[in-house]
């Protein structure tokens, strides 16, 4: 049996969201529906677009964004299938969950810093407690209990404070004659201490003046000696080049909000640059790294499959490439996680600025 080819104008609209929505709601004519049925098998890109569009359509329904004919069609067609109703059920729960997480977590997805698992578990625990509060009757009960407890604590503290202040006030009133000689004694000690402080301050000032004088003399001596050396040596030779074959750097994942990438200085005669990249926590068995020119987003170099090695506080990736690839500008090292089967996935970016 021959498959039905899409009509010419259809091919241009394959990934049009409106067309896909109509297809999902069973609202397209027979021939177009068949064409998209076939594409859902044979065209990877269309299949992905279809899956994404279906999720968005279901979310739109759950969030009350569908209206008019589209809403009616969703109810009368889409919801007739038990499998599709389950998707709506999941979407409903997921929207509540995601909205709660977006409200409580720090919304930070850099090319770097992962959220702390402990903080997330703690947040999830609070979230489940918050959901307990969501039911009205329980909220009232808990609210009343907290209010009563707060009143009790406040009342106890006030009573304790009141008694303490009264005791202190009565002590002050009954023993004025005992305190006065003690006060006089303390006064004398205080005056003595002040005199001693004044003497010390004066001595300190003298020492500072002497030090400044000596530093000035030292400076003059050094200048004289330098001038003599210059006269004796004649024209200075330029310093020898270090000529290091390899230079090494360690980079950490980029933090969001950090404006300037780290600067790496590469001496002129360097042949290779060795990099060690500290990795964020992950489960990938292997990795791949690309060197990108940040200005043009061009790939200048790509590694083969790399294995990470354990370090004291995590994992790190080591590799090297020719220093000749680098000029005085900013670059990005992009790390990809390579799962056991499947295509590499972007993990982190490590920008750096080269100075030569």
């Amino acid at each position: 049996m021959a498959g039905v080819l899409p009509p010419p104008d259809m091919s241009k609209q394959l990934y049009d969201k409106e067309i896909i929505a109509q297809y999902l709601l069973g609202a397209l004519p027979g021939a177009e529906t068949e064409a998209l049925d076939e594409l859902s098998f044979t065209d990877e890109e269309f299949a992905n677009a279809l899956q994404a569009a279906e999720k968005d359509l279901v979310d739109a329904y759950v969030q009350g964004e569908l209206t008019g004919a589209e809403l009616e069609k969703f109810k009368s067609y889409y919801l007739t299938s038990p499998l599709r109703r389950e998707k709506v059920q999941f979407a409903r729960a997921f929207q509540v969950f995601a909205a709660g997480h977006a409200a409580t977590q720090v919304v930070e997805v850099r090319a770097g810093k992962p959220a702390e698992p402990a903080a997330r578990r703690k947040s999830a625990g609070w979230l489940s407690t918050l959901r307990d509060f969501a039911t009205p009757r329980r909220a009232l009960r808990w609210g009343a209990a907290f209010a009563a407890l707060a009143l009790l604590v406040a009342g106890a503290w006030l009573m304790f404070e009141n008694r303490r202040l009264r005791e202190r006030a009565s002590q002050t009133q009954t023993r004025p004659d005992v305190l006065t000689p003690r006060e006089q004694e303390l006064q004398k000690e205080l005056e003595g201490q002040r005199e001693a402080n004044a003497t010390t301050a004066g001595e300190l000032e003298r020492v500072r003046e002497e030090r400044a004088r000596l530093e000035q003399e030292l400076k003059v001596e050094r200048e004289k000696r330098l001038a003599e050396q210059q006269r004796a040596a004649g024209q200075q030779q330029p310093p020898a080049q270090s000529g290091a074959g390899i230079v090494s750097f360690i980079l950490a994942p980029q933090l969001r909000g950090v404006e300037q990438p780290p600067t790496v200085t590469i001496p002129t005669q360097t042949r290779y640059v060795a990099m060690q990249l500290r990795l964020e926590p992950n489960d990938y068995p292997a990795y791949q790294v690309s060197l990108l020119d940040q200005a043009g987003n061009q790939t200048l170099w790509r590694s083969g499959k790399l294995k990470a090695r354990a370090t004291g506080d995590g994992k790190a990736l080591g590799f090297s490439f020719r220093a000749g690839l680098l000029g005085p500008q900013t670059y990005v090292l992009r790390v990809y996680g390579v799962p056991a089967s499947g295509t590499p996935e972007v993990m982190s970016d490590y920008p750096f600025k080269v100075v030569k």
Partner: protein
Amino acid sequence: MMSESSTHKVEQKRDETLTPRAFRRLLNWLDEGTDSGGHKYLEMRQRLVTYFDRKNCAMPDELADETLNRVARRLEEEGVIKSDAPARYCYIVARFVFMEHLRASQKDAALLDDVQRQTRGDNVVPSEADEEKEITEKMLNCLEQCTGKLEPLNREIITRYYVGKGQVKIENRRALAEELGITANALIIRACRIRDKLEACVRQCVGAG
């Protein structure tokens, strides 16, 4: 990691009438030369289930398995299928299976009632409100457990990608793709896969709980 779990799922789903050799031949044919560890089989099966579900068939899982069994038997009989690429051939067989199912359901009065019930939304008995609420509560608890198993970056992606409405959602997604340094399309695919994984985990959790 993918090949272990997918191989296990593959073992659960295959028809008992297929010999191991026939099943292995089917997997190899779907893989088209690169070993996907059963991933291609599971993906094709899911596409078939979705196809039959879109056609409002009452038993999309069974029809998907019937389709794949027929393809496997053809491979066993002829050794090779050269007429079409695997995806297209599976679609062609699926169409046949659907048409047969439709004819059979039209003849069978009991099946006809079932189909009518499927296609007339106002006759579908809605769940009781308390039962719905209980299921939602279970799902929320399971979502916490299941998102806890995700990698931190994937967890962040899935919670940011699907939050918000209208223009806010579009802007969130654009910013997320930019932060990750990937195209919008790559982000869509990644978010979809994470959500599918999450949904499967939640269903398993709710079913077990």
